[in-house]
């Protein structure tokens, strides 16, 4: 199916082609309220999008929607806006709303050309996203940073002791993913010092990415600097780096963790393994949570060691 070029309206051309990065956070869950065709069109519009969309937290993006053999440029807007009823999945023109065109433009903070329809949708929920739960056959953990494999596939990290190579895992919505690489210090010869990391690929985020935890790069920290962990169980927790050890001996594992920061107090709980940890107040990743010593300290394996071990590159 070809998209029409709305060249007669420069604004619409921009919005149809260019899409907000936020738009990429759309999940299957919120798309369930759409028709299959809408979803496909939306999906394909994302694939073609490489320009920025006008920035408004109440506009999730734009797409081309076909109804009754007509293709319509559409803004995906938050169905939870106060005031007017904004039924999920129903195409509306600005004039349909009691607040009128000027009112909705003021609400959204972007102009709405006459040809553009509004498609109310729930706030996008990311699929296989950093800080979400990951369920392996035996264990549960937290999803970490997005990466790209050597083959160019989109992927996401978690802890190796959570997900074994060759197994299928689910995100918290039940979307399946494949563990294509894993190294688990609990499954290596005694005294081997290794990363604790797994790489998961899935179809679910082929055109979607997360806006929950944004990673802009990596950074190394020193003692006394603050970090923020985004765990599935503990949520967002802030701690302070006490030090960085070239190895951590884990009595219940045959091997040992490689290159770990440890914090001045525990900031994590069971189920947080794999969680992304960033320099506090920044989008700079330092590594992923792998474990703790009770309430005394939490361990964060350095991102460089994990990327090297997994043979992947960070997606920013």
């Amino acid at each position, binding site marked *: 199916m070809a998209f029409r070029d709305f060249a007669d309206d420069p604004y619409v051309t921009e919005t149809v082609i260019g899409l907000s990065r936020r738009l990429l956070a759309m999940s299957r869950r919120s798309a369930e309220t759409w028709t299959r065709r809408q979803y496909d069109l939306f999906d394909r519009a994302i694939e073609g999008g490489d320009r920025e969309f006008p920035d408004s937290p109440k506009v999730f993006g734009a797409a081309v929607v076909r109804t009754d053999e007509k293709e319509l440029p559409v803004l995906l807007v938050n169905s939870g806006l106060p005031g007017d009823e904004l039924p999920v999945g129903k195409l509306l023109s600005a004039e349909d709303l009691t607040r009128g065109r000027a009112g909705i433009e003021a609400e959204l903070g972007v102009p709405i050309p006459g040809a553009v329809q509004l498609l109310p949708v729930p706030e996008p929920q990311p699929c296989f996203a950093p800080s979400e739960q990951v369920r392996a056959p035996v264990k549960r953990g937290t999803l970490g940073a997005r990466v790209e494999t050597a083959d160019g596939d989109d992927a996401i990290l978690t802890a190796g002791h959570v997900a074994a190579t060759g197994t299928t895992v689910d995100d918290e919505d039940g979307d399946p993913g494949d563990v294509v690489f894993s190294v688990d210090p609990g499954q290596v010869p005694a005294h081997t010092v290794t990363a604790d990391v797994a790489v998961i690929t899935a179809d679910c985020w082929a055109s979607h990415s997360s806006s929950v935890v944004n990673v802009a790069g990596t950074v190394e920290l020193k003692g006394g600097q603050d970090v923020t962990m985004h765990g599935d169980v503990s949520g967002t927790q802030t701690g302070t780096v006490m030090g960085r050890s070239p190895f951590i001996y884990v009595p219940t594992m045959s091997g040992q963790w490689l290159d770990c920061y440890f914090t001045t107090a525990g900031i994590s709980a069971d189920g947080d393994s794999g969680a992304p940890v960033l320099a506090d107040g920044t989008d700079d990743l330092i590594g992923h949570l792998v474990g*703790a010593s009770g309430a005394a300290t939490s361990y964060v394996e350095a991102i460089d060691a994990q990327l090297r071990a997994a043979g992947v590159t960070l997606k920013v």
Partner: protein
Amino acid sequence: MSASEASWKKVDDFARERNRTAGDVYGWSRLEREGHATALLLVPEDAMTDDFPDRIDDIELALKPIPPPRGQSHE
């Protein structure tokens, strides 16, 4: 006074050897504050402090007793 890399290497060798033989070093980290080089050793809560030297070359050893490290997956 900053310690030499050779001295830090001795600390690392010491920590790894203690881990292999006695299992009473979980990990260690450099601490350099106000010109004093200190190696912080993570040790079991029941570690025998007399078994550890006070320093290696110019590096002071400090012990931090902690519970055993473990992974934080949920079964």
